[in-house]
């Protein structure tokens, strides 16, 4: 039986650079969070910015290394499967991250808020007799500490547009994916570039929405549990869209440089899996955060 050797890389500097950078970034970040009410020290800024740059340097260097190895033909079909399993289970862990936040939203809406209302739970009347359960929650139990939002985002304006944008982007990405399988390079590049544009447009409108929420609606992180869950869910989703867009831009650049072929394009596939994942999360968000 023939056996294709499994590539075990020699020593690598990237992980330790990553560890030190991650530590510096988070240590600096913690210092900033600790000091922002008084005076943020130069040291804290240097740590966090240095850490961030180090992390970016590490990611670029590490991936560059992997790309070079792939082009040298060091990766067997078995290695390819390892990458696939790795990406699949990474996305699974990301799904669990969002499952957590959706679960807390359901718990808040179906259990916590109703129980603060004395009509559901008489004990709550001792603390906050005025409080009435509602969703979206515009009046919090303690309105001094947590001034409720005046209004919430209308789902049928920007959020609907964003839904259309993301669903379309998943579609365009799939077209690009089909094109690459038939080695239609130019077609892939066009549809991939279009996907990136949709992603950027989504992020632009999301930023618009946040500005509108803060300035016009009084919907902030501090406006009680509605604002807390709203920004937690949309914020982490937006962060993932940002990452996904960056990944797609890199994949686009690699596509233009001619890194991928009809047979070998796992980088492209992994990026598209990730993009579909953030898309599906958005559908959940649109339904449970905005509409219902």
């Amino acid at each position: 039986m023939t056996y294709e050797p499994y590539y075990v890389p020699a020593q690598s500097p990237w992980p330790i650079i990553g560890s030190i950078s991650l530590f510096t970034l988070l240590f600096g970040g913690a210092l900033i969070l600790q000091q922002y009410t008084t005076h943020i020290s130069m040291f804290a800024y240097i740590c966090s910015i240095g850490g961030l740059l180090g992390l970016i340097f590490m990611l670029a260097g590490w991936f560059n290394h992997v790309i070079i190895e792939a082009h040298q033909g060091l990766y067997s079909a078995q290695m390819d499967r390892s990458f696939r399993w790795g990406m699949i289970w990474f996305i699974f862990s990301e799904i669990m991250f969002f499952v957590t936040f959706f679960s807390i939203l359901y718990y808040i809406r179906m259990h916590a808020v109703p129980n603060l209302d004395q009509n559901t739970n008489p004990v709550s009347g001792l603390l906050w007799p005025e409080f009435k359960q509602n969703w979206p929650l515009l009046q919090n139990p303690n309105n001094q500490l947590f001034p409720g939002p005046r209004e919430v985002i209308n789902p049928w304006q920007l959020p609907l547009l964003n839904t259309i944008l993301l669903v379309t982007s998943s579609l365009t990405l799939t077209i690009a994916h089909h094109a690459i399988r038939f080695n239609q390079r130019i077609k892939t590049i066009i549809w991939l570039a279009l996907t990136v544009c949709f992603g950027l447009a989504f992020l632009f409108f999301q930023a618009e929405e946040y500005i509108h929420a803060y300035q016009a609606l009084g919907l902030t992180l501090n406006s009680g549990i509605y604002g807390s869950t709203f920004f937690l869910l949309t914020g982490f989703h937006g962060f993932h869209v940002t990452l996904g867009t960056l990944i797609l831009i890199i994949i686009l650049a690699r596509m233009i440089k001619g890194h991928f072929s009809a047979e070998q394009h796992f980088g492209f596939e992994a990026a598209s899996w990730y993009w579909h994942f953030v898309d599906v999360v958005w559908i959940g968000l649109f339904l449970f955060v905005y509409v219902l």
Partner: protein
Amino acid sequence: MSEHHNPPKGLMRWVLTTNHKDIGSMYLWLSLIMFFVGGFMAMIIRAELFEPGLQIVDPNFYNQMITMHGLIMIFGAVMPAFTGLANWMLPLMIGAPDMALPRMNNWSFWILPFAFIMLSSTLFMEGGSPNFGWTAYAPLSTTYAPNSTTFFIFAIHMMGISSIMGAINIIATILNLRAPGMTLMKMPMFAWTWLITAYLLLAVMPVLAGVVTMLLMDIHFGTSFFNAGGGGDPVLYQHVFWFFGHPEVYIVILPSFGIISTILPAFSRKPLFGYTSMVYALGSIAFLSFIVWAHHMFTVGMPLVGELFFMYATMVISVPTGVKIFNWVATMFRGSLTFEAPMLFSIAFVVLFTIGGFSGLMLAIAPADFQYHDTYFVVAHFHYVFVPGSVFAIFAATYYWLPKWTGNMYDESLAKVHFWFTFIGMNLTFFPMHFLGLAGMPRRIPDYNLQFADFNLIASVGGFLFGATQLVFLFLIIKCIKTGKPASESPWEGAEGLEWTVPSPAPYHTFSTPPDIK
């Protein structure tokens, strides 16, 4: 790649390595160091509880010690030890050249020392380290938290990243790198337990990351997830935390099931009894671990139907666990047993873990738990599953595989000394805590009523004995590395598995071409 490639020299070998054996060794050493750090904190706790009254530390520092002891033992000692064992042994056991993603493997490890620097740095900050217990319940960890909590949260994030990458690597290795012919149901039991554990890690570490992120936002960004004044709920924290926390306790016990299932057959000279049922029992335990979390919070004020559901679901776990215990006993039944150190620790595991399981069953009875909740009975229970469960299994594994790692045999009579003093010390420490708890002594309090003095004194003496004995363990490992008698390829008569087909110490690269599996 090359079979005869020797490891580079010097410190950078360890920093830059992609070799699963190097990384496994580093995990194991880190774990040992953290075991002593966390153990030292336990000694401070036992010294303070030696007699009633406040004598050695002030209450706030005592709270910091119990918090850090828990965090360091779980995330620093037990989890890295199991990951280290997985790194060292899985490729050897399944005939793989290395872990599936060797560079990421290095990153998983090297995040950890930095995470513990981050966590330990809080001890030297103004206001001290976290003092709310390892569970970090809100609002103790938000409104009333020390300033250093942010660093604690980021340390948890780092540990989470490390665990998730480690879990991904283990899954990819087991699913993709098994030698041709080794089907899933022919895999060594240790690989099975780690496969399931890795899935548990992937499913719940993101939940922990999420919940501590919400703590961070409540502290710094004005959100009100755990503040009822803004419509949130502090009990929500407990639900989410224990949704992570309960699978977590299986994360730190399932790999030991695998170790015990490896060692008992070896020293009974009989194959493992009921391999298939062991696999299904593992799967059931893993599944059930997701639907029992609220048994940690029976007294928090849940609807009756919730109490009942979580009570019965918890009790159901004793069925697959019982299957495992009976299988282990049946494995030993009518075997030709010998009692080397790994076997001694494994038998002690079966007996004492069962005691821990039974006290768990008592705690699972919701009405009874109203009496036991937050008493020393709980402390006794979880130490009976952690210490003779996880820690004894790690000791057993260390003795069992030391010849393979170092190429030398350890000192058997010294190991027996280590076993017996550990066994006696551990029971002296934790058995009286059952009585203390039933009599109503609350946990996490540095002072206690006079009536608890005798049992606390016994527990402290046992604790010091246990702690001191671990220095023997350290000495024993160093002695084994430096002056141990050379061990053969397969030093244990009854041991089976691919790891015993390679020389001792295992060469730097093994199974670059996969072995044949019959």
